[in-house]
């Protein structure tokens, strides 16, 4: 009896809240954890003020070469970016016309953002993209409406990265769908050859495909027919990306139950109608998040074209670093361009995650 009483008057356990409990749970849950926390806090306490100092507090933001030299790399020289930002962002596009790629890119990114929400996925969306793309290429290319013509060889920087990514992804989706259907075909010849193509392409690095574009395409084309370097690279990257798209689409096709195709067949629909009306609409919606991931990886992959002398964002930075005066400030240049890539890429991957959750909810209801 007395024992039970003493148990009843015992102090209640401390409430599971407040700053101390939070700290204990998240930073000091065990001895190794506490040691790791102390070590990391010490490291960050040493690093962060120095990083802040280098990046911002003592950095030079004016395009002043002498001031940058005087820093002797003890702080960042953003003056390099200030001096060369037009070259880095637009490459060798004629200087006085650079408002055109700027407007074109803003238009494109704006249209992309506007069509990002599933509520905008209507039939008219594809139709709405036609004038956007027309305006985009008209602005870049010129030659009409009083805009002076600019050769694609002079395109460069961020607009080139955007145009290459967009063209490659847009063109590789239909090719990938055809390849995926071929890989699941009942016809052994079609199935065998598409499987061979997909596996071969996925087995080689992108750079070989770029070599094919720059060295082999000129040999394969009939004499007199010439494709400019940008078109060749876009074509080769499309066929490369299509092999990966095919696997993405195949994943969606496999997620559908067999009953869908069998029911449609029992209704007497032809093979083409079954694919177009029953299978593909369901399969493609399932893989939209994977399409966004392909967009993201293509966006990062386009940086490889600098190896075959096309001046995309990466190539344009290297062009800017070709100036021997400013070359030593390469770290600032790479941080700037790397941050640009990082921001775009992170936005796309977050969007893909969001879409995935949303579509999963949509599929359940």
């Amino acid at each position, binding site marked *: 009896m007395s024992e039970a009483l003493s148990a009843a008057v015992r102090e209640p356990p401390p409430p599971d809240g407040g700053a101390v409990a939070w700290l204990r749970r998240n930073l000091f849950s065990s001895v190794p954890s506490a040691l790791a926390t102390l070590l990391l806090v010490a490291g960050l306490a040493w690093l962060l003020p120095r990083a802040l100092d280098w990046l911002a507090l003592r950095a030079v933001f004016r395009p002043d070469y002498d001031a940058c030299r005087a820093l002797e790399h003890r702080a960042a020289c953003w003056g390099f970016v200030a001096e060369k930002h037009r070259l880095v962002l637009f490459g060798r596009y004629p200087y006085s016309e650079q408002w055109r790629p700027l407007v074109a890119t803003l238009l494109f990114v704006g249209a992309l953002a506007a069509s990002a929400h599933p509520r905008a996925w209507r039939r008219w969306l594809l139709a709405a993209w036609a004038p956007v793309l027309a305006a985009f290429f008209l602005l870049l290319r010129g030659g009409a409406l009083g805009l002076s013509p600019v050769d694609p060889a002079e395109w460069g920087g961020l607009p080139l990265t955007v145009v290459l990514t967009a063209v490659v992804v847009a063109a590789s989706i239909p090719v990938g769908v055809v390849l995926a259907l071929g890989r699941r075909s009942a016809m052994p010849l*079609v199935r065998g050859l598409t499987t061979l193509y997909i596996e071969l392409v996925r087995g080689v690095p992108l750079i*070989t495909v770029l*070599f*094919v574009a720059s060295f*082999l395409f000129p*040999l394969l084309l009939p004499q007199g027919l010439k494709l400019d370097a940008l078109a060749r690279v876009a074509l080769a990257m499309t066929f490369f990306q299509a092999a990966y798209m095919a696997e993405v689409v195949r994943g969606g096709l496999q997620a559908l139950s067999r009953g869908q195709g069998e029911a449609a067949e029992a209704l007497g629909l032809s093979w083409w109608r079954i694919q177009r009306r029953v299978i593909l609409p369901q399969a493609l919606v399932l893989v939209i998040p994977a399409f966004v991931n392909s967009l993201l990886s293509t966006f990062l992959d386009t940086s490889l074209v*600098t190896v075959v002398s096309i001046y995309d964002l990466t190539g344009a930075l290297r062009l800017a670093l070709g100036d021997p005066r400013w070359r030593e400030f*390469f770290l600032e240049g*790479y941080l700037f361009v790397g941050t640009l890539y990082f921001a775009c890429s992170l936005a796309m*991957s977050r969007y893909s995650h969001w879409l995935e959750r949303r579509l999963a909810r949509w599929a359940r209801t």
Partner: protein
Amino acid sequence: MRRPRISWSTRSGRALVYQAAFLAILVLAGWALWRNTVHNLAARQIRSGFRFLDQRAGFDIGEGPVPYTPDATYLRAFAAGVANTLRVSLLGILLATPLGTLIGLGRLSRNLLVRALSAAWVEVLRNVPLVIQLFAWYLVLTELLPDPASPLALAPHAFLSKAGLQVPLPLWQAGGLVLERPEVGTFGVTGGLALTPEFLALLLGLVTATSASIAEIVRSGVLAISKGQTEAALALGLSRAKVVRRVVLPQALRVIVPPLTSQFLNLTKNSSLAVAIGYPDVVSIANTAINQNGQALECILIIMSVYLTINLVTAVAMGWYNRHVALVER
């Protein structure tokens, strides 16, 4: 039994017609491209065939395990390139796997700081193009490090400078194992095992970037193991480290191995970016050869067959390992 007739009115008949048409289109397209190529090669006076492999290459290769001089043949140059590709890829895989595993486990840590820093590592490395990372690593190694005459001493007899990293090299000499130690002289560091900045930049770039992808694979593999497994093991009184090592990881490996294989292949394929920073891998050698003799078709075929062989061998090896760790069902 009736023989299948080639007729439009049966499904098998239509399939035969479709396949015949498909094949005909492919053959026609192939023939047209082949004719163009022969024509173009003749017009540009480029020879064809693999006979060039026996000729003198004439260019130098900076490094590699295969002995090579500019007087050697193209065949030997390609062999040196393949050896360099394998060298950086194998070492990269060996370093990236433990690093990636550590960071993947770090993302699951109960410690908030460890979790946040691991997440930052993964996000930054996965969202910046590898080419950018390689260029940046290369410039850091060749511009920011001290001159070879006054190198950074990492340890006694291990030196880091603009000329690369020099470490002691174990040699089998006079029946015993001796260490050849690098020494600092007036003209830089001599002796020992020298790793060029190109090799180091490529290795660093590949290892850090791949470690981020491996971390994600390890994380999702561990998350796939049900919480009950951990709780049951903890209830048995095993320490946390032991639970991870003995209960969670062996089961997670089954989920991890297949995607890990494709990361190993990705690393190998990404080593072709060596051409961007001038490390003499097989792609760089092919690039030089194409610029010299214009035989693009042959050189590209060589690159492709090298990578496809590596893929095949890795797939077979990892398939064997996967069967080894797979669940043995009764």
